[in-house]
């Protein structure tokens, strides 16, 4: 159902170049030299733990917080000095901020009214956008007659109705329950693909970030620690923080000598040859570990073998979480998928176990955070 309401705004979508943004609140460095380039029509998510500066970065882009230093260029306009109402940036607020004294339709029409669009055109455009967020015919409702998910959609409709150059979203789905959140993640992504609007969203939910984004910017204590595609962020984290924050992980200390990495006495085969001599950490993802128990791994590539004993087993539905104490004394986690429970009995506590890690999954990250 391609109506004119779903026409692409790609022509208006603009890249955003954020350079060396610093924001101090007194002694607190909310943002510490953040540089980030968001391509035209790209969907980027800012991900990070609480207090990492995500909201602050979004607010500086929207114009509600003036950075201490740095520059933000949208298209070819420097916007750092522009007041928020002149930036032409749409935003979905965390609590949606739908005006309670206006109906749904009036809320969505408000940005058009501010731009002195003719009445007929406004009405038509409002209908189109409501249709786009699948709430056609809700224009006459009061805001408090909407459910949480509907409010979220209306907030989105209001933010895109005036075809802004960029769309910002501050934890747009955090107020929704899990199922609705997952549905809206896909819906927002679809809408983005249809409208082609440059989008920057904030979340502290890693799954949400991985689901929706082209690229994810991970923030930690006001600094950008890694900016990459979801896949690379998960498979090739460049530091311990990202490896820990995204997905499940265990770490083993690794010493490096003459380009050879060792865990204890075991020489490790790695995906990439180690560089430098500083001690590093071997990243273990629970689901990447193979259960060997004496058998040959049945793979062409090299497999690192790790021996240990099971110290804890927890049934978690889709898998059994095993805690394994390695011979070196380190505890790591692994998962036995539910589908394997038929063929392989859950190991008893205290039972010896041999785990394998394929060389292409063996990744080192710097030891410091």
């Amino acid at each position: 159902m391609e109506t004119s309401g779903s026409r692409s705004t790609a022509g208006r979508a603009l890249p955003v170049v954020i350079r060396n943004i610093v924001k101090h609140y007194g002694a607190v460095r909310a943002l510490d030299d953040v540089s980030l380039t968001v391509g035209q029509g790209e969907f980027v998510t800012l991900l990070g733990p609480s207090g990492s500066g995500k909201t602050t970065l979004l607010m500086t882009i929207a114009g509600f917080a003036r950075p201490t230093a740095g520059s933000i260029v949208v298209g070819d306009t420097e916007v750092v000095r522009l007041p928020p109402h002149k930036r032409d940036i749409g935003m979905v607020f965390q609590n949606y901020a739908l005006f309670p004294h206006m109906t749904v339709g009036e809320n969505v029409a408000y940005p058009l009214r501010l731009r002195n669009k003719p009445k007929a055109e406004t009405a038509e455009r409002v209908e189109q956008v409501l249709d786009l967020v699948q709430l056609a015919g809700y224009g006459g409702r009061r805001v408090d007659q909407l459910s949480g998910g509907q409010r979220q959609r209306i907030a989105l409709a209001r933010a895109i109705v005036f075809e802004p150059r960029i769309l910002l979203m501050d934890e747009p789905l955090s107020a929704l329950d899990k199922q609705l959140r997952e549905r809206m993640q896909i819906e927002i992504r679809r809408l983005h693909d249809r409208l082609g609007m440059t989008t920057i969203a904030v979340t502290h939910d890693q799954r949400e970030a991985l689901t929706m984004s082209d690229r994810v910017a991970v923030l930690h204590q006001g600094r950008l620690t890694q900016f990459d595609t979801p896949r690379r962020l998960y498979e090739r984290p460049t530091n311990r923080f990202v490896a820990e924050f995204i997905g499940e992980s265990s770490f083993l200390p690794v010493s490096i000598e003459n380009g050879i990495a060792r865990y204890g006495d075991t020489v490790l085969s790695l995906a990439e040859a180690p560089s430098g001599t500083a001690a590093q950490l071997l990243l273990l993802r629970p689901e990447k570990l193979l259960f060997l128990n004496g058998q040959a791994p049945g793979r062409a590539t090299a497999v690192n073998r790790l021996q240990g004993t099971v110290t804890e087993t927890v049934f978690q539905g889709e898998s059994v979480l095993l805690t394994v104490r390695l011979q070196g004394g380190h505890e790591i986690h692994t998962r036995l998928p539910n589908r394997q429970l038929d063929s392989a009995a859950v190991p008893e506590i205290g039972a010896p176990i041999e785990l394998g890690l394929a060389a292409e999954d063996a990744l080192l990250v710097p030891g410091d955070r």
Partner: protein
Amino acid sequence: MAISTTAPHLTGEAHYLTELEQDARRERRQLFALCTPGLLLTMLLLFLPIGWLFWFSFIDADGNPTFEHYSRIWTEGAYVQIFIITFQISILVTAICVLLGYPVAYCLSQLPPKWSGLLLIGILLPFWTSLLVRTYAWLVLLQRRGIVNDTLIDLGIVQQPLPLVHNMTGTIIGMVHIMIPFLVLPLYASMKSIDGTYLRAAANLGASPTRAFWEIYLPLSLPGLVAGLVLTFILCLGFYITPAVLGGGRVQMIAQRIEASVHLYPTWGPASALGVVLLLLTTLILLASHWLLGRWRRRLG
């Protein structure tokens, strides 16, 4: 606990439910019983005098029932004039209070708590001194050779002392001063509850600060404004001391007329009738504003 609302047809559970309901009802009754003494006292103190007022307003000097006190109010021009003046003053004072009080309340609501608390004390400070003292203080300030006139003459702004007191001007200055907290406090409370993200959202959608104020902030603060406005207006209608002192007898409002009637006539009847009319007018205004506010609230949700 097998409390089920899905299977009320099961006799056992239905019985159980009614027992619970009875328990809840008993608890409500007991709680209500707790507040009956206070309720009774309030009823006694509120309705007895008002009942008396109504009763006396229909009794003539000889103790016979009569309408003469009311008919006098409608027929004698002086009374009608007094009602008109009372409303004029009340409207004017309320309007000035709104013009002065709205920015004050807005400032208060935007300041960090430390400062707003301090300023709030400044607004409440007048309540710590008696109304009479404050009113006489204005007399001292505004009289012919008072501080205000002296200063104006010294500065060469005026040649003759301005007639600032013993007239309408003085009455209104004094009343605005007394009334302004009654407007500011409810307004401040309602402004305090307006979420700042509404204004951010408006700015984000392209509203200049001015438009965001008129189209978002003002409508959202309206319930508080109307509440303060009605309170101020109603207090103005029945105001006595300040107009009496600062009006210098030249400004007559209803309350003064009531007092005069008490002295003038041998019975309570005429004064009571005036009181009843004032009470009814006030009630009418309250009901109307309540209705209006209710409609607005329903829009706000």
